[in-house]
């Protein structure tokens, strides 16, 4: 594990190790996320053949899965409650689940059903959950600015709630990223900024997009602490996130964490990944397998524990997927509903 800090780093608090109960809980959470996305994968591809049509099937549209990036979501969200806000990207499921979103409502939205979070109006890139203060933006880096406002509201109301804004390494080259960091630091807002560096902006490698070796260095430009977590390991993320979350909750202002994570699958389902030069042996880099081995070695997890984690995850996921499939499809006559709270839009 390598932790590097930018010159802007301030005092470190809350860097304790997770206890064994937390370790097992984080493992189980990662298994749940992976199990959910594997189920999506099956249903997504089940009815798009023999002629591939991205808009066909029970799950239509682009599908960006987060397999390999579970340590980021779980390592951060373990420090949060559902009173804290999380803003995510076009690749949001791992964060949504780790932050405690109702699996049934999540699945139903992905299946485009009336019982989904957005009643089938949003889709998998546009998840908005008032119960967990979770939101997404499908536009690169543009989920960052609204997190400022959530943090602003939490601060104004005298709470210690925080906002966590997550984006990818490609987004760190967008103007919205830099405007947001400046304003957060200027107003000392309780935000934790997270960059998921999965090495690839669709097909463009990080080396072709980013002028610095670590986006954590960019934190120094805004006078906030920056930290890069080089290992795609949930406990490494957990420790860095603990420091940043404590800082935000205790009036220390924003921090930036970059995690060098892994996009195990394609940018979207159907991506042949001909551009990938790092696929050889990629299965050996699966962070859930790695963590399972380390917990077994430490004597924290055994066969029964692993089996239970997988069985419990499968039961929860099966229930959510069944709920989604059994839920009503939105009435096409209601396509213009919800544009406004009080004003009808002509069809």
């Amino acid at each position: 594990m390598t932790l590097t800090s930018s010159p802007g780093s301030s005092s470190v608090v809350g860097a304790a190790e997770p206890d064994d109960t937390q370790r097992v809980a984080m493992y189980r959470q990662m298994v749940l996320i992976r199990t959910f996305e594997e189920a999506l994968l099956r249903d997504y591809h089940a009815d798009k053949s023999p002629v591939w049509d991205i808009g066909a099937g029970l799950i239509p549209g682009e599908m960006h899965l987060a397999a390999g990036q579970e340590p980021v979501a779980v390592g951060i969200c373990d420090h949060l409650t559902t009173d804290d806000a999380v803003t995510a990207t076009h690749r949001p499921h791992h964060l949504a689940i780790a932050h405690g979103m109702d699996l049934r409502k999540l699945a139903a939205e992905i299946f485009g059903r009336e019982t989904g979070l957005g009643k089938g109006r949003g889709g998998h890139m546009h998840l908005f959950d008032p119960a967990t203060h979770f939101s997404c933006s499908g536009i690169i880096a543009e989920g960052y600015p609204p997190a400022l406002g959530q943090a602003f509201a939490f601060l104004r109301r005298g709470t210690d709630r925080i906002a966590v804004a997550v984006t990818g390494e490609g987004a760190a080259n967008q103007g919205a990223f830099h405007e947001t960091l400046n304003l957060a630091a200027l107003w000392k807002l309780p935000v934790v900024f997270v960059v998921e560096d999965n090495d690839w902006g669709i097909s463009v490698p990080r080396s072709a997009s980013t002028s610095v070796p670590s986006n954590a260095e960019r934190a120094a430009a805004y006078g906030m602490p920056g930290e890069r977590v080089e290992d795609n390991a949930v406990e490494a993320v957990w420790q860095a996130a603990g420091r940043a979350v404590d800082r935000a909750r205790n009036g220390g202002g924003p921090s930036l964490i970059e995690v060098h994570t892994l996009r195990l699958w394609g940018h979207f389902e159907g991506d042949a990944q001909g551009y990938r030069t790092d696929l050889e042996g990629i299965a050996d880099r699966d962070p859930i397998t790695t963590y399972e081995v380390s917990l077994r070695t430490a004597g924290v997890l055994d066969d029964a524990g692993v089996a239970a984690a997988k069985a419990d995850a499968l039961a929860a996921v099966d229930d959510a997927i069944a709920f989604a499939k059994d839920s009503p499809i939105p009435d096409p006559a209601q396509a213009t509903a919800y544009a406004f709270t009080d004003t009808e839009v002509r069809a």
Partner: protein
Amino acid sequence: MTATETSQGAAPTTTRRLTTAKAMSEGIAQEMAANPEVFYLGEDVGAYGGIFGSTGGLLDQFGPQRVIDTPISETAFIGLAVGAATEGMRPIAELMFVDFMGVCLDQIYNHMAKIHYESGGNVKVPMVLTTAVGGGYSDAAQHSQCLWGLFAHLPGMKVVVPSTPYDAKGLMISAIRDDNPVVYMFHKGVMGLPWMAKNPRATDVVPEEAYEVPIGKARIARPGTDCTVVTISLSVHHATDVADRLAADGVADAEVIDLRSLVPLDRESIWESVARTGRLVVVDEDYLSFGMSGEVVATVTDRDPSVLRAPVQRVAVPDVPIPYARGLEHAVLPNAGRIEAAIRAVVGA
């Protein structure tokens, strides 16, 4: 449903006269005093009081925690307003010139305007985006546009455009109280600024108490029988001036409708008037093509084109950038001469 047939929606309780700018800031102040969740942020809205006078006096009254000068980071601070609104606050964010929307439109049309729909109605975004529009003072191509047609075209935001002090206050109060995002577009030429040519109607009677002007309701700025002039913002005053003169000269008695809102659009009032007069002129300080003027015409022709007794006349900005030189600029703006020619053409005078 027809448009309110007075220049004001309620009987004034005072003869006190305010500029549009003062009326707007008074509406903001009254809502801020009534609701601690309301705050105002933008560039130069504090000590300066807004480049076009939108926030005069607010900093003194409410302090820098609620009247907040921002960095020149429109994406960040408009996005901040969006996020605060989703948590139940009622932010008012000012985009200094509407022409600057290019640096922050994503937060406006992909976030502010879409979250309620994408969430299936579960997340509200009760915020106001204020912005200055319009030309006529040689600020040229990047500081003189109206662009309300663009905001009205993009779904999910209400769009209000006051032309009078009374409406400026009432529409502001309605906008702040609205649970939807509202874009509040104020023309620099109606604000009554001491450093810019102004129409006498930029100062008028404004009640002291808080009141709402309903969003989505047009008003008849000048009743008439021979033709209908549908317009908005500063052009309401130009059209009314021309109509008064043409009536006095015995040329035509034109009815002038001030739309006041583009979203929702008061199609009934447009229809009711045009069905009565049979002749339509649309005056729009936005670009000619694909905008408000076409939408107003379609509102009539979608319903029954046979009510039109003459071809429609549209007076708008040709599809070119707003020029700098005074003569060039006034050649493209909907000035009195162009409006008069359109009315004469439509009534056959």
